């Protein structure tokens, strides 16, 4: 009960409020609203998986990593290779075989993104600790080089990433057709979110991360090596971006080397809305961005990205440090 007493619940109401506000704009069509809402939640959960590592990286070490999109692109391209090599499994009518193929693609993408993340932290980020301008320039440069290397390995063209058989099609609920993959993405996103929240709230490592985001100097004064913690968070954040890359590639059903750079803006909007360093805030931010992108994409497609910038501005007018600002920062 103390948890509830201490938790500010108002930001939690933003997500249902946005959904309710969109309802009359859809002409009160239940099926359209439900389809767009599920699509928005699915997109939001994928963006949360992308953004959750980045927000902790910023919170822990004040590192602005504009190269985060590289890990997303890498994950998506690894998925094309793994799922392409397992086409017999993905085209099988057996959903178990489909699931194994997707899980395999996710596991390999996470491993590759984690390994590249480790090297990225060591050679690109570490030399520019505490220097924000250099961080922006060098991490962007790292992403551009990474994209070029992806073109060398996979080619510059768009590659199709067909969905496994079991995830194709839609589930009908009344007049609403909800794509199976979107439900799957929401499920994966919820599992990742639950695992993250469990680690952050129930383990000592999680406690150290949360404390480090607030006051890393004090964590070091208690005898903990925050640099090691940061490397760990950076690597896990990269792996999660790789996982999100697989999910985003399947969501789009195709991948390009710029796939990561294209979502970078959305990720930064999410972590700014959420409050830099706040995982709970990133969940809210990602769901808001996902819903807003889908609602606006339907109502006024040309305003889709602009609408999220307006959303961010509106949130910042209400809470200049994001919906859940981290204390002591």
């Amino acid at each position, binding site marked *: 009960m103390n948890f509830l007493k201490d938790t500010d619940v108002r930001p939690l109401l933003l997500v249902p409020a946005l959904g309710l506000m969109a309802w009359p704009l859809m002409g009160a069509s239940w099926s359209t609203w439900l389809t767009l809402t599920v699509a928005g939640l699915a997109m939001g959960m994928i963006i949360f998986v992308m953004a959750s590592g980045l927000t902790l990286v910023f919170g822990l070490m004040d590192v602005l990593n504009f190269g985060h999109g590289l890990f997303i692109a890498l994950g998506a391209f690894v998925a094309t290779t793994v799922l392409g090599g397992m086409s017999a499994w993905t085209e099988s009518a057996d959903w178990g075989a489909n699931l194994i193929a997707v899980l395999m693609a996710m596991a390999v993408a996470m491993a590759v993104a984690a390994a590249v993340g480790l090297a990225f932290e060591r050679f690109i980020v570490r030399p520019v600790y505490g220097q924000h301008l250099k961080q922006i320039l060098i991490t962007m440069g790292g992403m551009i080089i990474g994209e070029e290397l992806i073109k060398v390995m996979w080619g510059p063209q768009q590659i199709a990433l067909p969905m496994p058989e079991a995830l194709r099609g839609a589930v009908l609920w009344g007049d609403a057709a909800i794509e199976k993959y979107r439900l799957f993405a929401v499920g994966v996103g919820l599992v990742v979110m639950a695992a993250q929240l469990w680690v952050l709230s129930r383990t000592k490592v999680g406690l150290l991360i949360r404390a480090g985001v607030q006051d890393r100097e004090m964590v*070091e004064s208690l*005898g903990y090596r*925050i640099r090691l913690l940061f490397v760990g968070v950076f690597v896990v954040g990269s792996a999660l971006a790789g996982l999100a890359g697989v999910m985003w590639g399947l969501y789009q059903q195709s991948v390009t080397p710029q796939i990561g750079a294209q979502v970078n803006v959305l990720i930064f909007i999410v972590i700014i809305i959420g409050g830099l360093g706040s995982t709970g805030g990133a969940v809210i931010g990602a769901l808001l961005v996902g819903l807003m992108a889908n609602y606006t994409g339907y109502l006024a497609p040309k305003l889709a990205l602009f609408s999220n910038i307006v959303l961010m501005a509106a949130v910042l007018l209400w809470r200049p440090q994001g919906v859940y600002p981290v204390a002591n920062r």
Partner: protein
Amino acid sequence: MSAPLLKLEGVHTHIGVYHILHGVDLVVPRGQLTMLLGRNGVGKTTTLRTIMGLWAASQGRITFAGDNITSLNTPSIAQKSIAYVPENMGIFADLTVKENMVLAARHARNQSQMDEQRLEWIFELFPAIQKFWNHSAGKLSGGQKQMLAMSRAMVEPRDLLIVDEPSKGLAPAMVDNMIDAFKRLKDSGVTILLVEQNLHFAQQLGDTVAVMDDGRVVYAGSMQSLTDDEKLQHSLLGLAL
């Protein structure tokens, strides 16, 4: 005087272009409470931060229990069994009181692995810690936050406790409570280095004293001799104890 646990010899510290410490010599005897006094801005906090490795000494030598710790990083220094309470208390406001305490207990992964007897002792000294155990630390009052900062430093046995202005901003009743806590800590045998502006506080607790001025220690001796010499107090601190 007992053997020194902590010793600073000719320590200089620069922060950016500013030269703050100009050769600090300081001895903290084992098992005693040493007060570090001085006017505002003479380098007391910088001295503590330099000991903890939060700012690097540009010159000089710091030894702890005979080991040279001058160039060690902050976690390594803390792991030598030194607890530090900074001036801003360093409370993790988004964490609960319990989580703050679990974090300070380096050898415990959760509450069940914490030393129960020690926890009882802390609850006895600071009942507010037990009362607000599951509450957000950010919601505590200033005095309660200082109690939490002290409790964190005491949650596991440490050889040296370094505390920066523990009475700052506390109500008089709370200051008495804090004095009592330090007396009991002293009785437990822990060595303490305290920076303090509250002279009543300093007089009640200090065994030895060092007075700083302009980035160096200008007087070191027993607290009793400083208390007994009003002229010296005026010349060093600008006021009498």
